[in-house]
C-alpha cells in the first residue's frame, strides 16, 4: 500500500486492501436463502407510493471458505433525489440491535436494492454500508422483471483510485448460489401459488413423492430400453449413474429381505395397536371419570 501511493498509478483497490483479502474476494460467492427474496418482495409491495425502489440490510454470516451466507434481511426507509440519497440511519441501527438480540450470530453482510442494476445512488449507499462492515455485498433483485425474468445479482465493489484520489467505485458481479433447499422443504407448490387452500398432509405428500419416484423409474426404463433397441446413442455417464443407483440397493438374499420387511411391518403394527388401545382407554376413562357421580 505504501509503495502504491508513491507511484501515481491508476489502480483498483479492493475494500480491504491486504493481499490475502483480495484473494478471497475473487472466489467470493453469495448464498441466498429464499426468505431474503420473500422479504425483498414483501417490502417492495409495501413500499411508499413515491419510492422507485426499496433498499434494506442483509444479515448473515461469512463462512470459512469465503462464501457469504445471506440468511435474513430487513428494509430500511430511504429517500432518493436526483443525486442525493438519504438513508434512515437511526432506523437501521435500531433494527439491527433488535435483530442481534434474537440472533447474535447474524451480522450485517451487505445490502439489497430492488431494480435491474447498479446506479449512481447505489455507490453512495454502498459507501455507507462499507463503513458498517468491510467489503459489503450488494444484492439486486429485479422486481420489475425488466428483461422478462426476475434477475438476482450480487456485487462487490472495488475502488478505482489514482494515487490517493478516489475516482470511482466499480461494482463487480459475483456468483449467486440460491439455496432453495429450505423452500423445497416447505414445498414449491405451497410457495408458488398465490393462494393454497389446504396444506398437504403426511399421506398426500407421500403419495406425491411416490408418484414422482415412479415416473423417474419409468424414465430410466424407457431410456434403457431405447438404448438396448439402438434408438438412442448410449451415454456412458448416464449408464454409470444407473449402475451406481442399482448397486446402491443392498444385495440381500430374498429370505433375509423378507424377514427384514416382515419384522419392520410387525413392529409398526405393534405400534399401531398400542396407540389404538391407548386411545380406546382414553375415551373409556373419560366416560368413567366424568360420569362417575358420587352417590
Amino acid at each position, binding site marked *: 500500500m505504501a509503495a502504491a501511493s508513491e507511484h501515481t498509478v491508476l489502480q483498483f483497490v479492493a475494500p480491504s486492501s491486504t493481499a490475502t483479502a483480495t484473494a478471497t474476494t475473487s472466489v467470493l460467492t453469495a448464498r441466498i436463502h*429464499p*426468505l431474503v427474496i420473500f422479504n425483498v*418482495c414483501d417490502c417492495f*409491495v*409495501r413500499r411508499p407510493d413515491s419510492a422507485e425502489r426499496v433498499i434494506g440490510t442483509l444479515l448473515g454470516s461469512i463462512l470459512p471458505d469465503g462464501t457469504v451466507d445471506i*440468511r*435474513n434481511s430487513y428494509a430500511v*426507509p430511504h429517500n432518493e433525489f436526483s443525486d442525493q440519497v438519504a438513508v*434512515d440511519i437511526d*432506523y437501521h441501527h435500531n433494527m439491527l440491535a*433488535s435483530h442481534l*438480540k*434474537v440472533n447474535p450470530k447474524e451480522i450485517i453482510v451487505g445490502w439489497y436494492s430492488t431494480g435491474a442494476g447498479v446506479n449512481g445512488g447505489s455507490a453512495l449507499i454502498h459507501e455507507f454500508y462499507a463503513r458498517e462492515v468491510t467489503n459489503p455485498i450488494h444484492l439486486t433483485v429485479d*422486481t420489475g*422483471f425488466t428483461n422478462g*425474468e*426476475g434477475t438476482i445479482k450480487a456485487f462487490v465493489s472495488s475502488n478505482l483510485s489514482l494515487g490517493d484520489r478516489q475516482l470511482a467505485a466499480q461494482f463487480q458481479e459475483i456468483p449467486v448460489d440460491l439455496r432453495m*433447499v*429450505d423452500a*423445497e*422443504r*416447505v414445498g414449491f407448490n*405451497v*410457495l*408458488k*401459488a*398465490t*393462494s393454497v387452500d*389446504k*396444506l*398437504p*398432509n*403426511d*399421506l398426500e405428500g*407421500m403419495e406425491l*413423492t411416490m408418484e*414422482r*419416484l415412479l*415416473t*423417474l423409474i419409468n424414465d430410466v426404463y424407457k431410456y434403457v430400453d431405447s438404448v438396448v433397441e439402438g434408438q438412442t446413442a448410449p451415454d456412458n455417464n448416464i449408464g454409470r449413474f444407473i449402475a451406481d443407483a442399482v448397486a446402491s*440397493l443392498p444385495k440381500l438374499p430374498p429370505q433375509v429381505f423378507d424377514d427384514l*420387511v416382515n419384522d*419392520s*411391518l410387525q413392529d*409398526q*403394527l405393534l*405400534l*399401531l395397536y398400542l*396407540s*389404538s388401545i*391407548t*386411545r380406546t382407554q*382414553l375415551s373409556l*376413562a*373419560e366416560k368413567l*371419570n*366424568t*360420569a*362417575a357421580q*358420587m352417590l
Partner: protein
Amino acid sequence: MATMARSFLQAISKDEAVAPPLRVVQIEGLAVLKMIKHCKEFAPTLVTGQLLGLDVGSVLEVTNCFPFPVRDDDEEIEADGANYQLEMMRCLREVNVDNNTVGWYQSTVLGSYQTVELIETFMNYQENIKRCVCIIYDPSKADLGVLALKALKLSDSFMELYRGGNFTGEKLREKNFSWMDIFEEIPIKVSNSALVSAFMTELETDTPVSQGDYDRLHSSTTPFLENNMEFLIKCMDDLSMEQQKFQYYYRNLSRQQAQQQAWLQKRKTENMARKSAGEEPLPEEDPSNPIFKAIPEPSRLESFLITNQVSNFCGQINGVAGQNFSRLYLTKALHEN
C-alpha cells in the same frame, strides 16, 4: 352520502356485535418461512414470536411475524423484552408492515404443546385482542418431510370455563365438555403476493426430486417413533398420577360422607331422646364440625391436557407408522424389481 355513511357505521357496529367465528387462518409465505427459520435455527430450544396481520371477517390474515429473543426469567431482561417488542412493532410500521398483533407462534417438540402455560398465554392475548391464534411449528416432524404447521385457538366454551376457574366433574358434566373440546384447530391457508409467486416460479429448480421428497422417502423414522413412545409413556405416567389424585379424593369424600351420616344418625337419636325428655332439639347441622367442611375437588384441567397430549402422540404414531407401511412396501417392490 350521510345516510350511506350512517348505514356503513351501522353495518360495522352490527358486525362488532356478532363477530363471525374464525374459520380460516391465511398465512403469507413470508411469515411461514420466517417462522420456520426461527424455530429451526434454535431447535431444540423452544422459541416464540409474534404474529402480525389483519382480522378480516372470518379470515385471520397473518402477513408478517417477528421472533422474540430467547426468554430468561430475569426480570430486567423481561422488561427489555417488552421494549424490544414495542421497538420492533414501531420499526415494522415504518416500512408499512401491518402492525396488528394477531397472536403468536411457537415451536414444539413432537407436538407436546398442550400445557397450562399455553392456555395462560392465550388468555392473556385474548384479553387484548378479540381474535387471536397460536401457530405451532414442529421442527422434529419437518425432518420427515411434512410441513408441520398448526393453527390453534381455545374453544369458546373452554375459555368460559377457564374464566370461571372450576374444573369440577359436575361443571364439566353440565356443559358436556370433554378433553377434545379444549383446543380448536383452524385450517391454514397459505397465500403469496403475485410478485413472490412470479419469483418462485422463476426460481424453481428443474430437478424432478426435491429435498422434501428425499426427506419423505428417508426410511429411518425409528428415532422419531422412539421419542414419541417415550413421551407417550411419560404422559401415561402423569395421567395415572392424576388418576390417583382423583381416587384419593373420592376415597376421602366417601369417608367424609360416611362420617357425616354417622354423625347425623347420632344427632337424630339424641334429638329423639331430648324430645321425649321435653327439651329443645339440637340443630341437625353443625358448620363448625370439621367433617362438614367440603374437600376441594382437584381440577381436571391437568388431566384433560395430558389426555390431549396422549391422543396427539397416538395420532402421530399412527401417522408415521402408516407412512412407514407405504415405505416398506415401496422398498419391497423396488427390491423385487
